[in-house]
């Protein structure tokens, strides 16, 4: 007689217990991994994330190679031969080419040295584009750090302790939300730009502007993050596992770091994807208005504003920065959409 190997659980023959036993066999999926899995199912969002990653990595790494690519060409002014290390810098401008704005080959008729053409003062569009993408991403990342740092810190504190801190933060948020956002950013750009320029002048001419943009955009962004985090903290505080830990005497600091913060992941991921979008648009907007990144730095917004100086000029001058900016923004929107669907527990399928 065949004997079926029984699991060594007493009374495991009842169907419910077999079910329980079988369920234990399957590896459980962490909520994080489940969310990532849901996100990967959204093809549009994954493709967009791929495009963003490509653009970011490309614009970060390719300039290292790009400055060594290409033949030596004649400089317009000095008439000397110059290497690509010089003319493939995004800030190099060949002024002698300014009489033929937007021409594809400002450095010589037989060279493909500027793959995307040049601008009216003979700068390489491709190098400027890559530098511009870098600036966009840098500002977006710095704003994220600022946003998540302050938002999570004050959000959890206000949610956990409430009291006067909650009131103060509420009033501050009221003020920020009653401000016309762009106007405040422009004001901060005009006021703080020159100050930060002076502070960071010795390190890097663009760094001051990047810090200023981060502060200006971050200051507007974090109250929203704080509100989300605070709402979630209030919610979590009422849950039984948190109450249990409080009753059993867990100190507040440990409860916040071990019980609250890990459970904020969903909401922080969703809110920060949205705010990345805001910072990219904000940086470009400020640079268009001339209070953000300034020459010799490069930024997508600055390139758009440069192209508007002569509306009768080459359309490629507007096309490339506008195209890249729109691709970045639209892709971040789709990724944000996918992330929200995947991480927001309310829309869980």
């Amino acid at each position: 007689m065949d004997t079926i190997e029984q699991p060594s659980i007493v009374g495991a023959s009842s169907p419910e217990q077999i079910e329980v036993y079988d369920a234990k066999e399957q590896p459980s999926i962490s909520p994080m991994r489940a969310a990532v899995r849901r996100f990967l199912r959204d093809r549009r969002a994954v493709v967009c994330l791929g495009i963003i990653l490509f653009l970011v990595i490309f614009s970060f790494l390719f300039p290292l190679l790009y400055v060594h690519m290409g033949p030596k060409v004649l400089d317009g002014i000095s008439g000397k031969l110059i290497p690509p290390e010089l003319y493939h810098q995004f800030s190099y401008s060949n002024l002698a080419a300014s009489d033929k704005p937007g021409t594809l080959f400002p450095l010589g008729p037989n060279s493909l040295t500027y793959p995307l053409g040049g601008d009216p003062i003979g700068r390489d569009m491709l190098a400027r584009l890559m530098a511009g993408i870098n600036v966009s991403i840098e500002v977006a990342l710095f704003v994220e750090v600022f946003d998540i740092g302050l938002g999570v810190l004050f959000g959890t504190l206000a949610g956990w302790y409430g009291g006067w801190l909650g009131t103060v933060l509420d009033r501050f948020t009221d003020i920020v939300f009653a401000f016309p956002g762009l106007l405040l950013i422009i004001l901060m750009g005009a006021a703080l730009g020159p100050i930060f320029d002076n502070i960071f002048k010795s390190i890097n001419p663009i760094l001051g502007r990047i810090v200023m943009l981060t502060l200006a955009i971050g200051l507007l962004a974090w109250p929203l993050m704080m509100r989300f985090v605070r709402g979630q903290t209030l919610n979590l505080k009422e849950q039984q596992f948190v109450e249990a830990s409080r009753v059993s005497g867990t100190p507040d600091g440990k409860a916040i770091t071990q019980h609250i913060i890990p459970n904020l992941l969903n909401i922080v991921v969703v809110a920060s994807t949205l705010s990345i979008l805001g910072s990219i648009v904000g940086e470009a907007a400020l640079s268009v208005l001339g209070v953000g990144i300034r020459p010799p730095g490069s930024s997508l917004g600055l390139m758009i504003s440069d192209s508007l100086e002569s509306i009768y000029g080459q359309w490629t001058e507007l096309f490339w920065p506008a195209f890249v900016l729109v691709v970045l923004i639209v892709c971040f929107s789709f990724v944000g959409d996918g992330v929200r669907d995947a991480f927001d527990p309310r829309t869980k399928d």
Partner: protein
Amino acid sequence: MGLLSNLPVLLVLLAVIALVIYSGIRIGPRFLIKRLAGLVFVLFGVTFITFILGYVTPGSPVQNLCGAKCTPSQLKLLYHIYHLDLPWYEQYATFLNGLVHFDLGFSFTQRGRTVWSILGTGVPISAQIGLSALVFALLIGVPIGIFAAVRAGTKFDTASMTVALVLFSIPTFVSIPIYQIITVQLSQHGLPHLPISGWGDSPIEIVAPVAILTIVELGFYARLMRTTMLDVLNQDYVRTARAKGLSRRLVVFRHAFRNALVPLVTAIGPAIAFVVTGAFFTELFFNIPGIGFQSVASIGNKDMPVVQGTVIIVAVAVAVMNLVVDMVYGILDPRIKVS
């Protein structure tokens, strides 16, 4: 033009005043006083931040006003007239003192013009463009959103929501230059086209700015409407209404739509409030002398009284619109109590 062109602005103003009076009657003055106290605090905050930022901005605001042949003594006199020779806290106190008397002072750069007169010319223009765009965006976007929600998961839903997201994502400082370049090309080839930019010469000039703003807002409202409508359509009472035999159309428009309006109103309230600041880039690129154009130019000129004026009317408008939104909640859903 004239009165007729300001008609939408007047209508909105009248509606807002009526709602505030209605709210006063409905829930008593205590609530209104509480809100007023909140507004005073917010006004204090925003004017202070604006003042400090203006104060630290480098450059002399009245240098241009003084002219090319400016002597130091004349400049000193101008500083004195505009209270710029005082320490910062006295400057701010002077400003607050004026504000309490509804006096926003004179512009630093536009000779002899009060801030009120600058706001008075700018705000109606911005409001006219902004409100028209808002109305068109709602008229087109809301039906699209409802339609997409009713047909969730179909090709129409996916396609229209993708287009809406793309339209909503493209910033106006990208779409307007593209429009202008196309217009230039059209005019160079002798094809019919809309004006590139400008204001006040012919009524057709309003078409392009309103269209561009409409496109941006349309995407936003279509998506918002779809999300909330989908939420509502999955509720039990909608299923009950369907189950008891009501037609699909009746359920969507009588039961679902009314409940989906609450988040929509929450979004429209501040949107109307921010209409008074104007759309910065639209006004800048189309050369429209609205308040957005004025305030950006004023920041460039360090004309802080005008910037303060803009900031103040926005803060007031946001507070008033929040009040109005609370009132509308009560009308839409009698269960919601204002506190």
